[in-house]
């Protein structure tokens, strides 16, 4: 079966500025892929090319196996999109714009069902200009979902959304993937990406610099300990039988698997020194890995 989204060697340039430079990625049905990268990495340009806003200068882009420019009508029937700069007529309410948008499709979801699903019932009759940023974002997500899409492209879906709203969005994305929908999300919220995505793709200066599952991106297993008071890293290294690096006086890190025996050694050692365990990580966080990767790419370029 072909991929829901397939980008191969994509290059998009605006005059002399190369926004996307040979990027490749795939998203399968029932999968959530998060596209990460600093501002100007080319994420939005890639998404816009997927949605038929731009012609690929080189390489190819396929959605449902179709060309988003040539087969635009067919692609948009089966694709939902939340755009970073996509809006609604100012005087319209969420209920009105959902009802209007429902008329574009043959078998849309019920607007009232979507209003409830996205917790928009209270503001269903409020004009767009008076909605909060989070309510606007949830309305745009409701619009993206109205056609029961098989591919969902969400450009920064949690921007300006409060924690409760984020939880709603996360659960909807998980439900859509469970239904068999392919979801591509661009975001700067690494914690959100960590929670939502099956796979992550990191872009920098138009190129894909890393891709894989969270475990694959996190690299080797590690034992990262944060303590309440500064302790001797060399002493812990001797006990664990590996080199321990002191990142900060209260943060010690070593490349070793976190077996129960080793955790017990650490626990006894802390107790012996009257210190308590503030946190224990078994691998680098996505944020740490991401910052490492971007710093490495910046130093290279």
């Amino acid at each position: 079966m072909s991929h829901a989204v397939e980008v191969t060697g994509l290059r998009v340039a605006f005059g002399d500025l190369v926004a996307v430079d040979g990027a490749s990625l795939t998203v399968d049905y029932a999968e959530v892929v998060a596209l990460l990268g600093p501002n100007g990495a080319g994420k939005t340009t890639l998404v816009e090319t997927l949605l038929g806003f731009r012609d690929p200068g080189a390489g190819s882009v396929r959605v449902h196996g179709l060309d988003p420019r040539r087969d635009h009508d067919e692609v948009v029937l089966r694709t939902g999109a939340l755009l970073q700069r996509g809006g609604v007529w100012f005087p319209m309410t969420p209920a009105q714009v959902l009802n209007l948008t429902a008329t574009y499709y043959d078998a849309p979801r019920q607007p009232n069902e979507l209003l409830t699903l996205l917790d928009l019932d209270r503001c269903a009759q409020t004009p767009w200009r008076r909605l909060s940023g989070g309510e606007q974002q949830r309305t745009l997500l409701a619009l993206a979902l109205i056609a029961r899409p098989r591919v969902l492209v969400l450009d920064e879906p949690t921007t300006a959304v409060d924690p409760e709203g984020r939880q709603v969005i996360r659960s909807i994305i998980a439900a859509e993937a469970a239904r068999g929908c392919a979801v591509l999300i661009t975001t700067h919220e690494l914690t959100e990406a960590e929670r939502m995505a099956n796979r992550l793709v990191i872009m920098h200066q138009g190129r894909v610099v890393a891709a894989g599952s969270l475990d694959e991106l996190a690299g080797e297993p590690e034992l990262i300990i944060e303590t309440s008071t500064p302790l001797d890293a060399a002493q812990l290294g001797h006990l664990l039988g590996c080199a321990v690096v002191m990142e900060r006086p209260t943060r010690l890190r070593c490349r070793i698997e976190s077996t129960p025996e080793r955790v017990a050694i650490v626990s006894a050692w802390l107790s012996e020194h009257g210190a308590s365990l503030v946190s224990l990580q078994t691998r680098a966080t996505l944020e740490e890995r991401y910052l490492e990767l971007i710093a490495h790419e910046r130093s290279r370029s």
Partner: protein
Amino acid sequence: MRAWWAQTRAEVRMTVRRGETLLLTIAIPVLLLVFFSLAHVTATPTRHRVDFIAPGVIALCVLSTSMVALSIATGFERSFGVLRRLHVTPLGQRRLIGAKIAGVVATEVIQVTVVAVVALILGWHPRGGLSGAAVATLIVLLGSAGLAGIGLALAGWLRAEVNLAASNGLYLVLLLVSGIVVPLSSLPAVIGRVAVALPSGALAESLHRLLGLGSSPTGGDWVSLVIWALGAPVLAARTFRLD
């Protein structure tokens, strides 16, 4: 068809709810009709002033709705990302433009009805009979197409705020130089010659001849109307940007 009809209804509803649009499309034309019909500001080629002013104000209605209101509304839709969002729905550019055109025509029907009723109260005697009304409808449709093309080209080309100023400025200039309320014969000859080459000038002149004087529009008027009706929408389609 269902999407187009729903979109058309939404376009008309939004147009009639926008206060500034009502001012531009109804209040200003009616005020100008009443003022220039009653006040002896300029000489008119007809016996009764309203017989000259009413066809001109109908041309002004077309100018305000097809060009200015459409341009400003579309410019802000582009600026606020509405057009970008619609691009990723199956509504499609053709149905959206179709709905906008239907919205413009519906608004113009309301405008012309209001202006005609006020003009008749002021003593207007439209010439040309039923055939004249049919030809006037064709002229209005051609004028609408040309002016809408210019409006959409401006909306696709300029930033929303710049477009707002440009459309209103152009409206004022075209109002004064197109023979809408001031007869072209009262203007310098060079302006008169340029005016009939403009869609608003050809529109106003044709309607003055047809409904005010009971004569036919000139070949030059038709040529100008047809060229703008075909050329301006093509220009708009070629230059229009969604963002």
